[in-house]
């Protein structure tokens, strides 16, 4: 069957009233859940999984997929409005998105996130449809040395996330790496820095750290400001419904670049997807004429990472659909759903269940379109929520954080962890140490260590593998180049200027 035949088969399946309804339900639920931080798609899908038992597998998968990318999308809303990132990718969105909201540009930030996501989702879906079988080879091509080098590159890029002192940014990345050490060491099974507390055996939970460092710390810091009673943000002039010409012109190239980066990284099953939004932010800041705008509400800093995130969310279906390899917990649940319906996930799904495969792909695009249709009108509702006086809004934010973090593993321990990181985040804010590089170190560190040690074990202790594998070598060379660029005086000067301006 040709490509077009496949697509038309897919659309005929996805456009049936029944499937369309479930696609809509999924994206709606997903958005709602994404907006509630902490309440991740995994928890939600698990609640809904029993319902999907009764549906036919294609419909079930369409529903689950809708929840998945709906949640990916919805997560950015809370990150932008109240600086509450509930997942890795929204950490980056929060940096410039929240600043935009504080400047009264929440509408623009949400708009660009919606449009960027839709564009990225469309491209991602097309990529899956056209190249899924071929791209699966790329997923298999990444072994421990390649992942290690990718993580090194990611960590060096993490420094770019900060806009203050370079030394402090590096120290924060390293601090994040140290925090990532807590828990059971994958390679040996040994416990590290758990101090006998079983709640730490699996490491410190990301959601608790992110909500503490960003959400709680932000609330405390807002409360000390005298004008806090008046509201989080000035609404500014609301402007037209769509983006201004200048905003659009600044945002679209960033969205295109972000889509490209996110789509490629999303294919890697070993956690490449989470690098997408960081990589895109780094790129945008690097090529911007005036990098000092970043961290202070640059629209490219929202458009790029949001597109990268959504493109990655789409292409991470490739290893699952073609190889049966889940790249994250949500995918694993979808595989579970397939298995419950007696469909063996894996390479043969495409040929043995073409209606399921192509129906799902077509529904992805429809889902993305529904998301935009659903969310553009909602933007007004979200923005108007910022009109609620802060004295009434912040207790509600705290409640949202507390319940959200509890729901991660139904354990009160995470509420305590979040509180501790809230205090730490506030102190770090006072010391002008930015939390975003710490979080990236925290996420990437364990993967870097795991892959370094795995690569050495597999090569019998021969460190040359990192340089003899071509992909690994290229990634390391790019990382080295990035280091050099960062170290040259001009870049340092720009940083210095940014730092001066920051003094507050």
């Amino acid at each position, binding site marked *: 069957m040709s490509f077009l035949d496949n697509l038309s088969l897919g659309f005929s399946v996805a456009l049936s009233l029944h499937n369309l309804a479930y696609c809509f339900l999924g994206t709606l639920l997903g958005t709602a859940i994404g907006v509630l931080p902490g309440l991740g798609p995994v928890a939600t899908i698990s609640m809904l999984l029993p319902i999907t038992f009764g549906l036919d597998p294609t419909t079930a998968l369409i529903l689950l997929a809708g929840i998945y990318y709906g949640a990916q999308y919805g997560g950015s809303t809370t990150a932008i409005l109240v600086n509450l990132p509930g997942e890795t990718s929204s950490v980056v969105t929060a940096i410039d998105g929240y600043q935009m909201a504080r400047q009264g540009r929440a509408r623009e930030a949400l708009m660009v996130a919606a449009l960027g996501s839709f564009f990225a989702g469309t491209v991602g879906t097309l990529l899956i449809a056209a190249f899924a079988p071929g791209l699966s080879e790329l997923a298999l091509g990444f072994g421990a040395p390649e992942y290690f080098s990718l993580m090194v590159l990611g960590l060096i890029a993490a420094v770019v996330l900060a806009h203050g*002192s370079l*030394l402090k940014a590096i*120290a924060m990345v390293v601090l994040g790496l140290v925090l990532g050490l807590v828990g059971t060491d994958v390679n040996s099974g040994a416990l590290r820095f758990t101090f006998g507390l079983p709640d730490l055996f699996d490491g410190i939970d990301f959601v608790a750290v992110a909500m503490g460092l960003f959400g709680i710390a932000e609330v405390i810091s807002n409360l000390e400001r005298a004008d806090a009673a008046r509201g989080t943000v000035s609404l500014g002039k609301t402007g037209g419904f769509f983006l201004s010409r200048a905003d659009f012109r600044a945002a679209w190239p960033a969205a295109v670049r972000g889509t490209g980066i996110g789509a490629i990284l999303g294919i890697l099953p070993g956690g490449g997807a989470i690098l997408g939004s960081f990589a895109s932010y780094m790129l945008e800041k690097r090529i911007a004429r005036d990098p000092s705008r970043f961290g202070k509400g640059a629209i490219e800093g929202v458009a790029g990472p949001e597109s990268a995130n959504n493109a990655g969310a789409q292409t991470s279906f490739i290893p699952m659909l073609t190889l049966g390899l889940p790249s994250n917990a949500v995918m694993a649940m979808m595989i579970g759903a397939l298995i419950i319906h007696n469909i063996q996930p894996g390479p043969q799904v495409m040929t043995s269940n073409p209606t399921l495969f192509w129906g799902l792909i077509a529904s992805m695009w429809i889902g993305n379109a529904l998301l935009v249709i659903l969310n553009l009108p909602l933007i007004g509702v979200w923005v108007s929520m910022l009109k609620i006086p802060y004295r009434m809004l912040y207790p509600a934010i705290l409640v949202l954080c507390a319940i959200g973090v509890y729901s991660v593993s139904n354990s009160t321990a995470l509420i305590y962890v979040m509180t501790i990181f809230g205090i730490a985040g506030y102190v770090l804010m006072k*010391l002008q140490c930015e939390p975003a590089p710490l979080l990236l170190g925290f996420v990437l560190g364990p993967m870097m260590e795991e892959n370094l040690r795995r690569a050495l074990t597999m090569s019998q202790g021969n460190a040359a593998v990192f340089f003899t594998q071509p992909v690994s070598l290229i990634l390391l060379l790019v990382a080295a180049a990035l280091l050099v660029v960062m170290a040259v005086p001009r870049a340092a000067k720009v940083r210095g200027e940014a730092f001066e301006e920051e*003094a507050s």
Partner: protein
Amino acid sequence: MIANKRDVLAGLMFVGIGVFVFIFAQDYGIGTAAHLGPGVFPMLLSALLTLLGLAITVVALRDHTRTHVTLSWRPLLVISAALLLFGFGLDSLGLFMVVALLVVISRFARAGENIIESVILALVVAAVASLVFVVALGLPVPLWPTF
């Protein structure tokens, strides 16, 4: 006198954490090149963190920018206490009560909030949270106090 107090404190904080982690890392094995032990990474990272902390401190000591660090203790303590109480009471008091408590207590983070407004807000937020999380989403927590 130290001018740039903020950065000196930041540097010393990194040094402190680095040293602490380095000492603890001694308990974990070093292993061999082919089987790096669980102690190698912690040692490298903590040494690096200590060095970075020292560098930040030294740079800050030579810097004449005047900075200082003042913490606002009231919101810091009130918010932390409110969250800890939420966690502590959730299993016994039920979601409705702890949400209401969290709202009321956290409102003391700033002086002069209207207590009646606090109570009304608490009831509204608790009702909405109970409906959304327990009734609609089926979060496995008790809704009302259990004794």
